[in-house]
């Protein structure tokens, strides 16, 4: 009789099945990140049904295979996704306003600030939660506001909270319109928010610049932060396909079939990693990853720290925007600093909306889009910096 699933249901199982159902509901009914939440929610359901063989790492369950090869062992999924993302992004708004890249850098403050806070709450201070140095750095990377970077860094650092970190990074991107405006308003005056920015003359960026840009970024970032090469290389390769002008079919495949196919597999695999209890993942050579259960207090704290990370990102970007505003003689609206995070294009839209509230003739969208696309590059560089520095101390 024990072979029946319904006879093995516990309250933890019921909670996880509810969470899976909620993800599917939010994705379909509320259109919140549906491309990710629907596969992920389905993965949660299949992984948490009692006696489900699909996450069995010993006997090659489907989700176990996807997680092992796509995420933990070869980190295939984040890299392939980035080729698609690169092919989708038009870096034109950034190339017309290259100074916005500094706002992208400033808006990575959330990564490092949250890392410090997580480590203080964990092994580095109060020991309230089981956050090691590597766990804390991985939790900080939620502040990259970038799913692939969060996956890549947290799994390479071997964090037991990797599944929660990945879910937090993706789900908070959908909450950017709720998280960012209060921080933006808190740190700026109405006069600052109302500053109008001059439009940039179109036709400013040559095709040669657009083609040389991805190649230059691969070389520069690769020489300064080598651990970022797989991610920045994939992102910029995708963008080169888009901009070179002779590979439109490959660019279309990268942003279409490739990105969609990997999104399905990634969503299912991440959902499959979200189980109530802890799991042990075995990869090549007997190396194991211990993954924390989704309903443990420390995991819930990871989600709380995710909100802190996004808020600190916004604060870092806006404060740097205020500095640029002063230095430019009030020609730069500090709000555009908030879109220095990688959540594209939601963050740029939020800046446009908050700017319009202060001045109904104020159109900041394209300026904010520049900072937003710059944030995509900045988040990868910051992730690479974490991968460079953390192994030196832990």
């Amino acid at each position, binding site marked *: 009789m024990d072979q029946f699933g319904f006879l093995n249901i516990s309250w933890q199982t019921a909670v996880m099945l509810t969470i899976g159902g909620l993800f599917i509901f939010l994705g379909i009914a509320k259109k919140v990140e549906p491309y990710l939440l629907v596969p992920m929610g389905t993965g949660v359901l299949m992984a948490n049904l009692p006696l489900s063989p699909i996450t069995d790492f010993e006997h090659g369950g489907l989700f176990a295979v996807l997680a092992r090869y796509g995420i933990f062992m070869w980190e295939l999924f984040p890299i392939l996704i980035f080729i698609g993302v690169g092919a989708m992004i038009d870096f*034109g708004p950034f*190339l017309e306003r290259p100074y916005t890249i500094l706002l992208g850098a400033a808006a990575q403050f959330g990564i490092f600030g949250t890392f410090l806070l997580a480590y203080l709450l964990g092994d580095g201070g109060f020991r309230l939660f089981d956050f090691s140095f590597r766990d804390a750095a991985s939790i900080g990377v939620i502040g990259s506001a970038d799913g692939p970077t969060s996956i890549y860094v947290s799994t390479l650092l071997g964090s037991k909270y990797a599944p929660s970190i990945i879910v937090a990074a993706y789900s908070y991107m959908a909450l950017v319109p709720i998280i960012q405006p209060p921080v933006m308003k808190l740190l700026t005056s109405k006069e600052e928010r109302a500053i109008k920015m001059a439009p940039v003359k179109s036709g400013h960026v040559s095709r040669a610049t657009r083609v040389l840009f991805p190649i230059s970024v691969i070389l520069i970032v690769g020489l300064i932060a080598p651990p970022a090469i797989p991610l920045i290389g994939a992102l910029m390769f995708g963008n080169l396909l888009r901009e070179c002008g002779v590979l439109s079919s490959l660019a279309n495949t990268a942003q279409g079939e490739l990105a969609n196919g990997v999104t399905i597999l990634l969503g299912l695999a991440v959902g499959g990693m979200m189980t109530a209890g802890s799991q042990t993942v075995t990869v090549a050579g007997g190396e194991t990853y211990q993954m924390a259960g989704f309903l443990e207090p420390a995991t819930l704290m990871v989600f709380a720290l995710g909100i802190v990370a996004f808020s600190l990102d916004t604060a870092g970007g806006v404060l740097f925007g205020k500095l640029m505003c002063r230095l430019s003689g009030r020609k730069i609206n500090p709000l555009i600093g908030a879109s220095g995070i990688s959540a594209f294009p939601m963050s740029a839209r939020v800046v446009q909306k908050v700017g319009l509230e202060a001045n109904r003739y104020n159109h900041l969208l394209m300026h904010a889009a520049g900072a937003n696309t710059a944030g995509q590059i900045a988040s990868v*560089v910051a992730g690479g910096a974490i991968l460079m520095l953390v192994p030196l101390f832990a």
Partner: protein
Amino acid sequence: MADAVLVALGGMAITFAALAVVLLVMVILSKVARPAKGKDTGGAN
């Protein structure tokens, strides 16, 4: 905790340094590779 502060400061420094170099190269590129009148600027322009 001192190690964590070093990583945080170092991380921000590396991020700013790498992106400042990208900015510099982009500024140089935009001066060297200006679009000629009537030439294709890559679609978005």
